[in-house]
């Protein structure tokens, strides 16, 4: 089964990497966000109520979560074309296990997210980000969980709506509020009480908090012990959903 997962993922990655646009726009997109947003944050950081320390320390972990959320959250777009061309059907008729197939497809988004994240961390170091190796390692695990959950959900949704336009609408409808409520871009402490209450329902709020704690090696915080189990469960549910969808992906 691992072999089949590897085969599917390798094929998909080769195909993705062949696209020069992906290298430029996919891999470097988060860096662009960082370059545009980090200087702007310098001013904000002096605002009363902003968490202490350098703004990059606040912003880089948030950006990592946001990137995992958005990149993997758009994974489903690719599968609609595969469904249309019959490629998905061709994979589904082979004897490989459905779980292997699903993991292979999800692994591609996960790998992309890891590559982007590592690149983002490296660039952030030049902006003065301080990290611990253990913290970064744990943070990458969290990002993988976020990517698995988001990619699986996006794939499943794509197999239901079967149309890029509708998928874009549905994705934006969910992603933007989840992003804003997560406090990725601005500290949620700034928000009015209602928003703060709503943000407690946003799983990405916990991921963002955990990411900020983790990056400096604070792995024993409550945020971390909440975020990990939460995203293990979410990733498992989303994967299960995707497996179910692919068993009868009606094109």
């Amino acid at each position, binding site marked *: 089964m691992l072999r089949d997962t590897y085969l599917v993922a390798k094929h998909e990655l080769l195909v993705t990497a062949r696209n020069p646009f992906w290298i430029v726009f996919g891999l470097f997109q988060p860096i662009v966000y960082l370059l545009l947003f980090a200087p702007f944050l310098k001013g904000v950081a002096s605002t009363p109520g902003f968490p202490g320390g350098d703004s990059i320390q606040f912003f880089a972990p948030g950006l990592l979560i946001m990137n995992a959320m958005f990149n993997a959250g758009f994974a489903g777009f690719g599968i609609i074309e595969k469904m249309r*061309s019959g490629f998905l*059907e061709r994979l589904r008729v082979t004897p490989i296990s459905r779980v292997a197939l699903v993991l292979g497809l999800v692994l591609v988004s996960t790998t992309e997210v890891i590559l982007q994240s590592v690149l983002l961390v490296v660039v952030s170091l030049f902006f003065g980000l301080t990290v611990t190796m253990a913290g970064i390692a744990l943070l990458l695990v969290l990002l993988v969980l976020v990517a698995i959950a988001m990619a699986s959900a996006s794939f499943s949704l794509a197999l239901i709506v079967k149309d890029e336009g509708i998928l874009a609408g549905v994705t934006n409808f969910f992603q933007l509020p989840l992003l804003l409520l997560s406090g990725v871009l601005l500290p949620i402490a700034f928000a009015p009480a209602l928003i703060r209450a709503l943000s407690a329902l946003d799983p990405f709020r916990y991921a963002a908090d955990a990411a900020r704690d983790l990056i400096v090696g604070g792995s024993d915080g409550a945020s971390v012990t909440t975020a990990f189990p939460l995203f293990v469960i979410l990733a498992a549910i989303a994967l299960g959903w995707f497996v179910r969808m692919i068993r009868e992906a009606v094109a």
Partner: protein
Amino acid sequence: MSEPILVATGLRKTFRAARGNPAVEALRGVDLTVATGEVFGLLGPNGAGKTTAMRILCTLLIPSAGSARIAGFDLVREQAQVRQRIGYVGQKGGMEGVATGRENLILQARLYGMSRAAAAVRVDELIDRLKLAEFAGRKTQTYSGGQRRIFDLASGIIHKPPLLFLDEPTTGLDPASRARVWDEVRRLNAEGATVFLTTHYLEEADALCGHVAIVDKGAVAALGTPADLKATVGGDTIVLGFASEAAAKAAAAAVVGSPFGAKMQTHEQTVRLYVHRGEEVLPAVLQFLNAKQLEIATVTLARPSLDEVFLKLTGRSLTSEPQVGS
């Protein structure tokens, strides 16, 4: 005879439709038996349910009701075993456009369990056999329709499946490409593979298939060998051509009282005799007219076509007024 490779009973498929629309009954109880080693055809107009039936038989869709055994395994409970023994070339092909033809085939071979080395050998063998070398290294999105279809076929037979499903293998191909696909189907069949194909070309079913099921609106309207099916619409037509109208009239007059003159029609210089087993009657007709010193200019034996079978069964012509479907 050995056990049939495919036995399906009571296959039904109902697609839930979008809100406000009635559900689509794509299959309404289909029974099929495919003998090991034959070429079996599903013939029917657009929207008849051919693709739906084939996708169910390939484990891609779960039937709403009914069951099937393929190569001795249960279609629903033993999917993995069934998948190992079938090859499937969908109506849409399914090549990854940004990968080369060769890469597509290698992936396919590897997913059927071949080692890296074995996959390379097998893919080269197929590229050679199907004469694909010229474009195997190009991205499949650059292929012409015919080139792509041959590659699709290659991907379906990569693991030498005992049962091969082909969904409209020649739709949209020019006569030369179609002939290539036909040749390959015949060759595979001669090598022992059972082939299950769908088509809406009558001549394709006629030329390739040992048995044909005519499907219409989700049900099998008729099943048999092409010859049997054609026999159900009545006999053959013997078309006799004469040098002049007078000669035709004279011949008609002579034939009227004869055993083969029961149903006939005279039109200008030709006389048409509607008979059963035309190939057996024809020599007698020729002898009879010869004995009467009536000189025949041309003779044609016209067989009833599957189109006539379809027309008789459904009241619609397969070739002239296609139903609108997916």
